[in-house]
């Protein structure tokens, strides 16, 4: 039995009929076509599907699509404006803070939320904030550098 939900995603309202068991991650990918939200474990351990739900950082595989009814979602596709990268995205490119790119959207969302809430994080705070996002490629060194640099960039406006 499908349910109708209304979800605002990256500023646009979508009305969709979904099965109650459909995960929010899969709803974003398959129903809306926003494939930047990646799925690496489906049990909330890897963080590749991290998004903002009403501004709060969540793992979209741990939510059902129906739980997003009436709420606002921001995905990695919602950060760049007209091809202009956000400060965090630009810092990731500059510092090679990715390799295969699979964890990157989740890392970007977690970094974005960190810097929104804590503009001057220490290295320890950065590492703690990103500890819910696994990366198999980078050893995290360049990711931490990118977040530090993005904090500096945001400060300088």
């Amino acid at each position, binding site marked *: 039995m499908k349910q109708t939900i209304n979800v605002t995603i990256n500023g646009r309202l979508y009305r969709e009929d979904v099965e109650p068991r459909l995960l929010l991650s899969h709803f974003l990918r398959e129903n809306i076509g926003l494939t930047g939200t990646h799925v690496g474990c489906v049990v909330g*351990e890897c963080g590749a599907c991290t998004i903002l739900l009403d501004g709060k950082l969540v793992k979209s595989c741990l939510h059902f699509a129906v739980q997003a009814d009436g709420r606002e979602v921001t995905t990695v596709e919602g950060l760049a404006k007209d091809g202009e990268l956000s400060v965090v995205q630009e810092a990731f*490119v500059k510092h090679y803070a990715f390799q295969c790119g*699979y964890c990157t959207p989740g890392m*970007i969302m977690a970094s974005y939320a960190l810097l929104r809430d804590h503009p001057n994080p220490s290295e320890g705070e950065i590492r703690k904030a990103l500890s819910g996002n696994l990366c198999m490629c980078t*050893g995290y060194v360049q990711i931490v550098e990118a977040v530090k640099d993005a904090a500096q960039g945001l400060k300088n406006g």
Partner: protein
Amino acid sequence: MAKFVGSRSRSKEGPRHVTGRGLYTDDFMLPGMLQAMILRSPHAHAKIVSIDPSEALKNPNVITVITPDDVKQSTRPFRPGRYAAGLKRPIDEYAGAVDKVRYVGEPVGAVAARDRGTAEDALELISVEYEPLRSVVDVREAIKPSSAVLFDELGTNLAWHGALKYGEIDGAFKSADRIVKENLKIHRYSSTPLEPFAVIASYDAASKRLTVWVTAQVPEVIYDGLREALGLQDVRVIIPDVGGGFGQKIHLIRKYVVLISLLAMKSGRPVKWIEDRSEHMMAGGHACAQEFEAEAAVKNDGTVLGLRFKEYDDVGGSISTLTIHFTNKLNNLSNTYRTPNISMEGFAVVTNKCPVIPNRGIGKPGMCFVWERMMDRVAQELNLSPIEVRRKNLIQPNEMPYSTVSGNVYDSGDYPGLLQGLLEKIDYDKLREEQKREREKGRLIGIGVVIGVEPGGRNAARDMAIFPEMKEPPGSGGINGATIKLEKNGTLALHLGSPNCGQAHETTTAQVAAEVLGTTPDRISTSIPFDSDLSPWGVAAANSGNNFHLYDIGAVHGAATRLREKILKLSAHVLNVDSKELAIEDSTVKVPGSTVKQVSFAELGRIAYNNQHLIPDDMEPGLQATYYYTFPHAKPNIVPNAERLVRAQFTFSAGAHAAVVEIDKATGKVEVLRYLIVGDNGTVINPDVVNGQVYGSATHGIAVALGEGFIYSPDGQPLTVTYLDYGKCSTAETPKIEVVHRPSPSPFTTLGQKAAGEGAAIPSPAAIASAVEDALTPLGVKITDLPLTPEVVWRLVNNNPESSRRSY
């Protein structure tokens, strides 16, 4: 003066990845596409008695089910590859289990339904009757006559046994002052790429053409596997963005490509399959658990005259990768040492566990672990410094190129320099003093220093060294291609022969092509999907074997050089000058100093494709070039000779590693306080990219040593099926890796480049073991086995022997 090679350059992959616009296999949708799920064995060892899918098929949204009978009737077994060539008698291995299951998670069947949920539900409605058999998970148990036997055809679980001897090993042991012995173990782990296995198969029955999109590292394995198993002539393999490979996506994935293709052929619809994380952890392939009995023949001054070892490999429930961890030790058999006599004896033992697969360095981390653990042991027994013992045995820079005892030719390297650079950078003497002071306060701090080579560029004939009966190699040396095209608007398009799994192939190759052609990397685009129809590829077209720097860079450089010659020829004709007078700068060909005699790439593009009357009569129109590269210095020993001498790989990077650790006595937790690498990757084309490879590979090796790993219950049930069970390290546990480059460019490669992919994953497990042992010196503890989980270390600290019955 190089403009782009060796400089920072903006990432070409970055913008799409940070905006979520990468395209991975799961991101593609085809009209009418079905979703598949794999039916897997819940038993470690059982006979399949019967299987009945009729309940599942009652749901009209369940379109197709395949069973062992379908696999047996509609597919053929894979031909034994180079890692199964040692089987005493051939054993058919199909894409799915046909009579028996030999590990938990082994594919037994598959379902295609209109959506994934329905496919998942259908799995539960397929009734399978199993007759459970006794299982065996321990290598030493498995080779006892009383053990359950996995393959009746073999009559034993010892599926392969063989040996290689180099030099006068017996003489070395006779003339030694001392023989140092140790038994060592490395456990099962993997690189667990974040993107799991993913396949889309589409079959056009009318034209008998199969197209697959797959997350894979080596096109040849998929291409040959499909043709062998399905008997098709017309196969197209497309590899889009790959979410991490590390070896996991080379071999075993071919089974799933065949099963999903069979579903597509039976249903007449495109079929997609995306593996679950738990499926990957139980059945996606593990690096081999390796047990060693090692002996070093040494002189009292620390000279190692000979090394011999026996190796027991727990290869799991498949015969298709029997010898891979053993033969890979030929790649770094000598490590950085001059030891003139080495022998190795291998035992490949099948067990009721997940099959082994290649994983970042394959057997090389094990080989380095043997060498570096033995070097520490030699130092302890002779009461010498571990640094001095290593120094005593290092190959010297003035001996390069150096021919090793097994036939490798080390192209370049300054191993004493790397070691010295490491000791200076980490301030070793001061560190030892600090350690002494802190030890008196009761802190358990340890310092481990190791060194290792990182071979690059694979020789496809290597494995013949252990199969003297094999007449023809499955391949030899390495061949890979690249195509570059100047477009009508003056930009360039590059096609590589091998897929990109996150190592920045697009960025690095654009830098090289821009350098050769006098343009800029931002004007070069590299086609992202590998496409077997379009990509120029050969046996070295593999995101594996540390092949990229030798073969792909060689091919791109060759193609760009060939295109440059065509550009100059056309320009000389257009400008009516001798081509020798011309230079290329910023995408413009010009006579230096002249403001008139110049022509832009865009103008040349328009001429080359549109204006026949402006093209020289003796010139082929168009501005495109393809080049297939082989390593020009691959001889001698490209094919093993009578003495079994063989070039296993062709370039030799190296690194000296220092780990400083502290152990918490109360919990057994090992904290890495500092991790420093002084490395030689030859000419570095893009420093950010190479650093990223070193950071990532070191991190993996450290995490493996400190606890990542697969654990089985005594009856063969996998107990580590999530990232948390497995112990994957996050930013919180991962130390900050420091890297210093001290390159010795290769005299034999195109730009002096050497490999940089597997790199730091090879010595890092040994570095951690060395540091932990050093920390526990006051307690007299020896480290012989990995992993060093808090539980293991706590037991060592508290002299509390292992009571657990779990098996790695």
